[in-house]
């Protein structure tokens, strides 16, 4: 009995020390990383300054390709944000123990992605100064308004989810971290709102977390389904499809899981958490990723087989362009390199180790981004009526440097929010009640 208690004490001390260390110690690589991200953001800000000054004319978007990489980037970020619900809802409600250390990473990624999605959609507006007209002159019939409502709902729920799971750990930071700057102490004190691990408080928090875990799921499905309706409610080839909702949602889960794997890899490496994010986590994530990719593959086949078999009118032209035309290299890279090949590779145990699976996940993320490019742009270039009598520049779409720098800056924002949140708070939930044996990896881990 006392031996078990000793272990538990040692385990808890060790755990606290390991998981709070990165908050106290700021490494050079962290500073360089943040500096790099800020630099990218500054370059993007200059691009956006030019866009504000001269208008959307600085982009390569024109009357036919009226949506470009801003919109595909928006869809990408909305997709990534779905992963929060995967961990804090689906895996949690199914009582998976292994996924618990990854919950906070997923919640942070979700919050960051949804913020970036909102920012990028404002960047895409021709009149960002009229943003609040969306509230002032709101027309509920418009799918854009549905999207605005559901995205803000998801942002709020995601923030609350992140905060509630963080609350006991923030209180711990408040109590344990004495050697931090004043502003940090103040931050922890305010954020911990008098949390004292009181049984009453714990019971209440568990209740709230459960309600949130259930309520976030339909909202998460809805954000990407509604985003798909921005396309599915029009007549464009490739968009005019009843398959688009589940197609988007399944693709989002795949991309989100890949994002988690990449985040796991870097967090483990730079915060030295090998004992907390183990190879077994990567293995399990790999299996999960295969499952999610197979679902996405299924909807992909559904999305393309029908139109490709029939080859009707502009729908056929659009498919031809993707399969063998201008966009064929990108299309096959996305479908093979970003979907089929990862599924095949991840079936092998050796590929589910941390490094190979992180590389595979990078390909999935790249594929996911370019897939959204392929969803948005080629469809717009195949209208029912032929494109004639306009300026030559209207026929093609090659994003300008302003568009690329702004898009890269949105990625930098995404990573910066994640980095700062990880730096401020324990990335693995510390408060944990589990049986501890002497052979527990944390006790035996040598640094």
């Amino acid at each position, binding site marked *: 009995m006392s031996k078990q208690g000793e272990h538990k004490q040692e385990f808890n001390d060790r755990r606290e020390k390991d998981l709070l260390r990165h908050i106290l110690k700021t490494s050079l690589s962290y500073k360089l990383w943040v500096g790099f991200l800020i630099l990218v953001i500054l370059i993007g800000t200059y691009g956006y300054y030019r866009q504000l000054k001269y208008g959307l004319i600085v982009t390569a978007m024109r009357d036919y390709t009226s949506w470009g990489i801003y919109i595909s980037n928006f869809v990408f970020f909305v997709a990534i944000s779905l992963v929060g619900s995967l961990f804090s809802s689906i895996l949690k409600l199914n009582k998976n123990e292994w996924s618990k250390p990854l919950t906070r990473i997923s919640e942070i990624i979700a919050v960051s992605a949804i913020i970036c999605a909102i920012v990028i959609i404002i960047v895409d507006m021709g*009149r960002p100064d009229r943003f609040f*007209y969306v509230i002032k002159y709101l027309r509920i019939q418009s799918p854009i308004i549905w999207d605005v409502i559901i995205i803000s709902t998801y942002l709020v729920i995601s923030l609350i989810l992140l905060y509630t799971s963080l609350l006991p750990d923030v209180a711990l930071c408040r109590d344990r971290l004495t050697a931090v700057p004043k502003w940090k102490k103040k931050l922890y004190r305010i954020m911990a709102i008098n949390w004292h691990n009181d049984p009453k408080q714990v019971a209440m928090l568990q209740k709230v977390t459960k309600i949130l875990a259930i309520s976030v799921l339909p909202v998460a499905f809805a954000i990407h389904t509604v985003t798909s309706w921005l396309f599915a409610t*029009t007549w464009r080839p490739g968009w005019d499809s009843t398959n688009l909702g589940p197609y988007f949602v399944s693709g989002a889960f795949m991309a989100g899981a890949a994002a988690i794997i990449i985040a796991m890899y870097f967090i483990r490496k730079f915060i030295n958490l090998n004992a907390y994010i183990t190879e077994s986590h990567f293995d399990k994530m790999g299996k999960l990723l295969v499952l999610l990719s197979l679902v996405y593959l299924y909807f992909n086949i559904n999305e393309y087989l029908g139109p490709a078999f029939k080859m009707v009118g502009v729908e056929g032209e659009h498919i031809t362009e993707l399969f063998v035309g201008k966009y064929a290299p990108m299309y096959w890279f996305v479908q093979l390199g970003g979907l089929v090949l990862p599924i095949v590779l991840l079936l092998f145990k050796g590929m589910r180790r941390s490094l190979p699976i992180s590389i595979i996940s990078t390909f999935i993320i790249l594929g996911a981004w370019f897939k959204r490019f392929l969803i948005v742009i080629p469809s717009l270039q195949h209208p029912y009526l032929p494109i004639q009598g306009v300026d030559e520049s209207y026929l093609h779409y090659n994003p300008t440097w302003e568009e690329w720098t702004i898009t890269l800056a949105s990625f930098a924002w995404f990573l910066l929010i994640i980095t700062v949140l990880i730096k401020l708070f324990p990335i693995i939930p510390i408060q944990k009640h589990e049986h501890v044996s002497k052979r527990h990896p944390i006790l035996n881990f040598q640094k």
Partner: protein
Amino acid sequence: MEDNEHKTDSRRGFLKKISTGSILAASGLAFSSLSSCKNKSTEKTTLLTPDGKLVQVPNSEIEAMEHLYHGAPPKEARKGIPGKKFVMVVDLSKCKNARKCVQACDKHHNLTPDRPYIKVLEMQDNEESSPYWMPKKCFQCDNPPCVKVCPVGATFKRTDGIVLIDNERCIGCRFCMAACPYSARVFNWGNPPEGKLDIPYSPETSLPSKHGTVAKCDFCPDMLRQDKLPHCVSACPNGVIYFGNELEDAVTNGEETVRLSTLLRDKAGYRYMEELGTKPRVYYLPPVDRLFPFEKENSENKTS
């Protein structure tokens, strides 16, 4: 060109007959709204007010009223012209791509040639049939996809059938452009080419255009308010475009006035992509018994 202008004048007669009252009503309005300002001009013109009185108005004040005909201000422009349901019929058998409609439209809407509202498309229905020219404007659909998707109600459908845009409300999301199956809309990607036009904004003329907002063919409601034909109709040298009021079942191309229902029945009128259910207000007459051979270059469009 000289010739055309004379024609235009004579064409005005038709619509004038339909409602002379509205012009007089407008001049009455002109008088009452301007009577407060003092003018020392001695020359005066006698006008009839809506309540039947003859009044004298200084000439300078009549000139000032021309501004009102730039089109109604945004709030007013949301209501249609009472008693009208505008409709257009394009006779494809008469079009030789003279491009006069495009030029007139560009001129009056301050557009550059690379980005016109009207596009004259080279169409071919199938491999065997010969190509033809298809002038395409906004179809002013009765079930407009663009209006349905607008998040802020910046684009709207009026009682007279016209779909307009309020560019003081448009947020520039471009969802309407994605939603329009006919690619009727254009966007002000940069600053408008004309620079600053010093006139009050009206959705009825789409002028002055604003950067970051959407625009399109508007059926020239400012002309319609004056009982004149839209610029493209009066500019066409071949009488391709018929325009009129559906409620009166009559359309004119400026030279001949015909019964709308008879014209559509006899010449097999159709609406482009009827199957989408958008209910366009623009009809086409198929390119049969053509007046001109299909030529990419001809005497009339070469100089343009």
